[in-house]
C-alpha cells in the first residue's frame, strides 16, 4: 500500500514538473493557434480558445469547460487548483491556383491555471491565441524596369501571433446559477520580412524586415444556468476594443475588433454519457474591408469508457477573412480520448481533428490534420 502511494505520488510530481515545463519553457512565438492562408489578407487566423478535451468534441463542450478559455462561469466548479496546457501539430495541404503545398507546424495554443480562492469564488489566469499571424508566401512575377521585363520571386513572411492574456473570476451564486467575468489583454508581436530576388543579379535583392507589436483590450462575461438535472445552458459575450499595430514605436494601424456572443446546451443523461452543442457569433466585419461577420456551431459527445473517456464532435462555421463577397467556410470532425494518472491528479488528453476550409469561389482549399495533446495537472 505504501509502495503504491509512493508510486502514484511520484507520478504526480513528475507530471507536475512536466506541466510546469510546458507552461514556462515554450517560446512565445509558438503560442499560436492554427495557421491558415485565409488569415494572410486580414488580421490573422482567429485562435481556438479550447482545451484539447473540448476541441476533441468539436468545441461543443467549451462553454462548459473550466479549462477552456472561452467562458468564465464554469470556473466556479473547478474545485481545486488546476493547470493545463495544450499542444498540437498540424499537417496542412493548401491547394491554390492549381498547385498544392504541404505545410506543417507545431503550436502550443493554450496554457492556464485556475483554482478556488473562496467557498464560492474561483479565479483563473492564462493565455491563448487570439490571432495567429504566422505565414510564409512566395510568388513569381515580373516588372518592367529600365525598359526590360525583369522576373523576380517575392517572399513575404510573418512569424508570430497575438495572445489573449485572460484574468477571470467566477462564482456559483446558487445551485443553478454560476456567473463569471474576465478581462483580456491582447499582446503579441510578429517578425515580418519582405524579400525580392531578381533573376537578373544586376538588381540587388530586396530585404526588409520589421518587428510589429500589437496591443488591445477586451472584457467578457458568462453565465451557466442549470435548467434541470443533467441539463445546463451556457451564455457568454465578449467585447474587444481595437488592435493597435506599432512598428518602431509608430502606430501603423488601428483595427476595430469584434464583439462576440455565444451559447451552448449540455445534456448529461447519465454519468457515462454527455452531449453538448454550441453556437457563436462574431462581428468581424468591423475589422475592415474583406472581413465578414461569422457564425459557427458545434456538437459533440463524451462517453465514459472505464477510465478512458472517448470524445467526438463536429463543427462548422465561417472564416472572418477572405476575398469576394462571401465568407470562407470551414467544417471539421474530431475525436479524442483522455487518460487520468496519479489518482486523477494528472490527465492527458489526445485528440485528432480533420478540418477543411474552402473559399467561396473555390480559389483556395485547405485540408488539415491536427494531432492534439493536452496535459492537465491537479497537484
Amino acid at each position, binding site marked *: 500500500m505504501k509502495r503504491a502511494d509512493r508510486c502514484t505520488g511520484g507520478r504526480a510530481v513528475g507530471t507536475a514538473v512536466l506541466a510546469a515545463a510546458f507552461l514556462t519553457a515554450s517560446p512565445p512565438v509558438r503560442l499560436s493557434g492554427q495557421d491558415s492562408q485565409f488569415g494572410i489578407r486580414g488580421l490573422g487566423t482567429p485562435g481556438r480558445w479550447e482545451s484539447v478535451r473540448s476541441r476533441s468534441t468539436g468545441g461543443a463542450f467549451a462553454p462548459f469547460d473550466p479549462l477552456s478559455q472561452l467562458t468564465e462561469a464554469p470556473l466556479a466548479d473547478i474545485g481545486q487548483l488546476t493547470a493545463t496546457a495544450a499542444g498540437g501539430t498540424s499537417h496542412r495541404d*493548401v491547394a491554390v491556383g492549381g498547385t498544392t503545398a504541404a505545410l506543417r507546424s507545431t503550436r502550443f495554443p493554450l496554457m492556464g491555471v485556475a483554482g478556488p480562492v473562496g467557498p464560492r469564488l474561483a479565479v483563473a489566469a492564462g493565455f491563448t491565441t487570439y490571432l495567429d499571424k504566422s505565414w510564409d508566401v512566395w510568388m513569381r512575377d515580373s516588372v518592367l524596369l529600365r525598359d526590360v521585363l525583369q522576373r523576380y520571386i517575392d*517572399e513575404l513572411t510573418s512569424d508570430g501571433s497575438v495572445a489573449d492574456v485572460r484574468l477571470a473570476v467566477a462564482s456559483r451564486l446558487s445551485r443553478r446559477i454560476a456567473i463569471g467575468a474576465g478581462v483580456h489583454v491582447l499582446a503579441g508581436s510578429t517578425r515580418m520580412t519582405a524579400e525580392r530576388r531578381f533573376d537578373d543579379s544586376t*538588381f540587388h535583392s530586396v530585404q*526588409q524586415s520589421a518587428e510589429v507589436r500589437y496591443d488591445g483590450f477586451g472584457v467578457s462575461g458568462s453565465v451557466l444556468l442549470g435548467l434541470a438535472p443533467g441539463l445546463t445552458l451556457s451564455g457568454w459575450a465578449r467585447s474587444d476594443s481595437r488592435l493597435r499595430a506599432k512598428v518602431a514605436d509608430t502606430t501603423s494601424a488601428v483595427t476595430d475588433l469584434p464583439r462576440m456572443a455565444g451559447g451552448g446546451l449540455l445534456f448529461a443523461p447519465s454519468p457515462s454519457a454527455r452531449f453538448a452543442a454550441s453556437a457563436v457569433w462574431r462581428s468581424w466585419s468591423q475589422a475592415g474591408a474583406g472581413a465578414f461577420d461569422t457564425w459557427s456551431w458545434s456538437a459533440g459527445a463524451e462517453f465514459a469508457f472505464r477510465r478512458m473517456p472517448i470524445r467526438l464532435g463536429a463543427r462548422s462555421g465561417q472564416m472572418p477573412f*477572405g*476575398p469576394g463577397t462571401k465568407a470562407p467556410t470551414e467544417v471539421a470532425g474530431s475525436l479524442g480520448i483522455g487518460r487520468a494518472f496519479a489518482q486523477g491528479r494528472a490527465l492527458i488528453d489526445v485528440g485528432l481533428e480533420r478540418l477543411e476550409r474552402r473559399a467561396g469561389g473555390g480559389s483556395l482549399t485547405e485540408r488539415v490534420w491536427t494531432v492534439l495533446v493536452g496535459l492537465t495537472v491537479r497537484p
Partner: protein
Amino acid sequence: MTRRRLALVGAVLLVAACVERLTAPGRCPDYCPSGQITIVDTLLTTSINRDSSYRGYVLAYEAALMLAAHVPGTTDTLDSRPIFRINGYGSRLRISTADTSTGAILGADSARLQLYVLRRDTATHNLTLRFYRLPITIDSSTTFGSVVPFTDSLRSVNIDTLLAQPGRKDTLTGDSVVVDTINNRLVLSLKLDSVAARYVGTDSGTVAYGLRIAADTPASIALGKGSIGPVLQWYLRADSLGTPVARKPGALGAAFASFVFAPPPAPLDSTLAVGGVPSARSLLRVTFPKVIRDSSQIIRATLFLVPAVRARGAPADSFVIEARTVLADFGGKSPIDARVGDTTVIHVGATDTVKTDTVKIEVTNLLQLWAADSTHPTAILLRAQAEAQFLGEIRFYPSIAPAFRPTLQVTFVRAFPFGEP
C-alpha cells in the same frame, strides 16, 4: 518498463513534430498581404555637380609594368618604349670560391637577357622587338625626347617566328621563349653576342637598353618589372694571374625600369579624364536625395558617362575603370574608401562608335554605402583600376555640358508597409 518506453517514444515524436514548414505559393492579391514591395526607378540628371579631374598619381617609372606600343593614328603615332638599366659587377670579379682573390674583368663572351611579356594581343602578327643600347645615365627624369631616336641598335627578335620554332628555340640565334599558360605570359630569353653584350669595366659593367616594337597592325605589349622584370646573365672573361678564365656570375635584375612615350597626354581641361600615364582621376560630387537616402533600399544605381574623347591605344589596351567613393572630400587628395567599388571596361579602339557610346558603371554598392552611413561624403572617384599600366585615357563630358553631363539612374524600393492589415 513498457510505459517508460512509450514515454520515450512519445518524447521523440514530440521533438520530431516541432518542425516548421510554412512556405506556400501565394495567389495575389486574394491570399497575399495587402502591402507590396514598391519599386521606383528615377533618373537623377542634375545631381552630379562640381566635378573635376586631377593627374599625376602614378608616374611611368612608378608603374608596375613597362609599356611598349606602336599605334599609328590619323595625326600622330602613339610610340611607347621601355627603358631599363642593369648595374654590373664593377671592374673586378671574384675568381674562386675558395678565397677572396679577385681578377679584372676582361670582357664578356656573351649574355642572356630574360624578359617577361605580361600582356600582348595574339591577333597582332609579326610582333618584333628591337633592342637598343642607351646611355647608362637614364633615370626617372628621362623623357622621350632625351633618348629618342634610339641609335645604337643591338638586335631584334620576331616573337611570332620564335614561337613557331620547334621547341620554341631558335638554334641559330640562341633565343628561346616559354609560354606560361598558368600565368598567361611569355618568358623570353635572348642571347646577346660579344658585340651586343659589351661589358665596360669603367662603367662598372652597367648597361642600359631601350626597346621598340613593331607589327603588321597596331601593337601594344607590357613587360614585367621588379621580380618579373628584365634579368641579365653575363658570361664573362676574367684575369686569373694572367690567364683569362670564363666565369658565370649571378644574374642581375634591373636597377631602373620605366618607359617613355609620345605624344604626351593632353593637358587637363574641363572634361573628366580617367586613366593614362601619368594616371588621371576624376571626382564627381553627388547631391544624394534625402527621399532615397532615408526611406528606401537601393537595389540598382547606374552612372552614365558620355565620352568626350575616345581612349587611344591598341585593342589589347582595353582597360578597366573603377568607381570608388572617398573617405573625405579633399579634392585631388581625397583618400579613397577601399571597401566598396564598381567597375566597367573601356574598350579601346574597337570601333568609332565607342566615341559616342555612353559608358555605364554600376555604382549600387557606393550608393548603398551612402544610404547606410549618412556621414559618408557623397562623391564618386573615377580612376583606372590598374593605374599607369595602360596608355589609354578616356575623357567624359563634365556636368557643365548640359546635354552630355553625367547622370545617375537609381532604382530603389520604398519602405514596406509592415503592420498594415
